[in-house]
């Protein structure tokens, strides 16, 4: 840009002024929509969580009474504990399987493309479809249990889906089936981005292959691990469809998660106030993992 000031620039015409404002005008509808539907609604839900609303929203404020009720609610604790178990296992197992498959696939494998396609396709399915399929596979009378018993292992038992203590683990199995291939794709992309010369140098130093992966490659993949954990944790907190389709939150409410708790109370049990309070706590959970992530992301961008 030169500094010569043309008369046109000194006194902008009407169309010139419009041009200058156009980018903002184009962005304005989306920004307004998000301001209202995201931030406005978050505030609105917070307000609802402070009221005694039941069937219909009412604005009769009861302070943090709904949160106190939530804390005293056994079903909420079951749902929260389930989320801890489900989230931790889901994230950990996906990471292990994803990293392992990516490393194995990175060994100049024949038909790598075909294998990758097979590993990843479940991610294209709806969690409802996944839930319906696994409900069928886990059905004790006709599914995997019956099949293995039919092979002659009469005492084989795999009836987790009807066992209140084990139902939560069936959610882990189905969710891992759906998402671990995606984690594999993330790791594979990360591995392909690593400079070969680092690995060659380590080989010349006489390091063994497992040692190279653990000491040299894995540290390079830290950002991938970080992103994967973020995305998986996010999927875990939002998990709603899978529970509805696979266990329905049952037996009883043994496999409830906060997302299903919120929906049941807000939409089926006429407990809008309580449902709103649980939604706010879910938001709190997301923020607790999101803020450190965004913080480190912004910092790394500034430094490099």
């Amino acid at each position, binding site marked *: 840009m030169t500094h010569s000031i043309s008369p046109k620039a000194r006194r902008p015409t009407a169309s010139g002024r419009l041009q200058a404002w156009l980018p903002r005008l184009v962005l304005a509808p989306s920004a307004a929509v998000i301001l209202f539907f995201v931030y406005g609604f978050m505030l609105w839900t917070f307000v609802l969580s402070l009221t005694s609303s039941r069937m219909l929203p009412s604005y009769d404020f009861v302070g943090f009474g709904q949160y106190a009720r939530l804390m005293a609610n056994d079903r909420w604790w079951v749902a929260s504990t389930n989320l801890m178990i489900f989230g931790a296992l889901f994230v950990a197992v996906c990471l292990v399987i994803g990293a392992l498959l990516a490393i194995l696939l990175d060994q100049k494998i024949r038909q790598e493309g075909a294998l990758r396609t097979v590993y990843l396709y479940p991610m294209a399915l709806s969690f409802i479809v996944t839930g319906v399929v696994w409900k069928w596979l886990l059905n004790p009378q006709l599914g995997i249990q019956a099949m293995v018993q039919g092979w002659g292992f009469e005492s084989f038992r795999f009836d987790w889906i009807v066992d209140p203590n084990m139902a939560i683990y069936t959610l882990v199995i189905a969710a891992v089936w759906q998402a671990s291939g995606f984690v594999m794709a993330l790791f594979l992309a990360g591995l392909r981005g690593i400079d070969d010369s680092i690995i060659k140098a380590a080989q010349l130093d006489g390091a063994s292959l497992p040692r190279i992966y653990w000491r040299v490659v894995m540290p390079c993949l830290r950002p991938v691990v970080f992103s994967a954990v973020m995305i998986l944790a996010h999927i875990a907190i939002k998990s*709603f469809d899978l529970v509805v389709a696979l266990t329905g939150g049952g037996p009883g409410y043994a496999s409830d998660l906060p997302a299903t708790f919120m929906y049941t109370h807000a939409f089926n049990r006429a407990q809008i106030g309580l449902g709103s309070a649980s939604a706010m706590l879910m938001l709190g959970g997301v923020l607790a993992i999101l803020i450190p992530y965004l913080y480190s992301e912004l910092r790394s961008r500034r430094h490099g």
Partner: protein
Amino acid sequence: MADAIRRQTVGARLLRGALYAVLILAALFYALPLLIMLITSIKPLSEITAGSLLSLPQNPTLAPWTKAWGEACTGMRCEGVGGYFWNSFAIVIPAVLISTAAGALNGYALTKWRFKGAEIVFALMLFGCFIPFQVVLLPMAQTLGWLGLSSSRAGLVLVHVVFGIAFTTLFFRNFYVGIPDELVSAAKLDGAGFFRIFWRILLPVSAPIIVVSIIWQFTQIWNDFLFGVAFSGHDTQPVTVALNNLVNTSTGVTEYNVNMAAAMIAALPTLVVYVLAGKYFVRGLTAGSVKG
């Protein structure tokens, strides 16, 4: 590497065999549920109760598919999932097109016409990608009521557009950041305006990111259940909701073959997209996570 392979010892060859064995076992783990779903959907019910999961159909039949499509009960009605399948398309197509167009313009305005506060606007929009949707469900239900859009397809289109814009803006912004600014500033000096530059310079190179955005939005909205179950009516349910109703409608004997056929019907569109454009699907999945 080549001579290393030539000098393979027995141990190395065994290791290589084990490697393939593990990879193939993993492939079976992912592939078998889909295969079993397919096999079950073409078995008569008698073969399902008598045989096992993996036994192949003796008398394959398409009856479960036609029943799932046109006759099976989803709640009170017994019209199959066919109508809801088209509902999903009627919701998905406008929602995908609108959110992609808005995302393209937003990304362009944010990167090529940087103005004060653009970064903050983007950060605030980005946050829309991450909220748990439970936090907007109740206000949304009430707002749709006020707009006269309760239980309508238009209402669902609106919801999907609103919560899709954050993602599409992210896609296009990250893509347009990589397009050299010089192209745009040269056109600006020539007196080209905002839309002309978008149309003539940015749009012609945007094909890959448009595909990524369309595929991402298509799978997201097609697979949605939460908004569908919360905001649709009897006639306007998307296919995921109808599938769930079909599976949970108990009228005497559970017809597993019909359930599996309905699940296949609900899964097919996104599977087809994945098979045809898997590369772009993966790129959309990783767009938000891996920088580059």
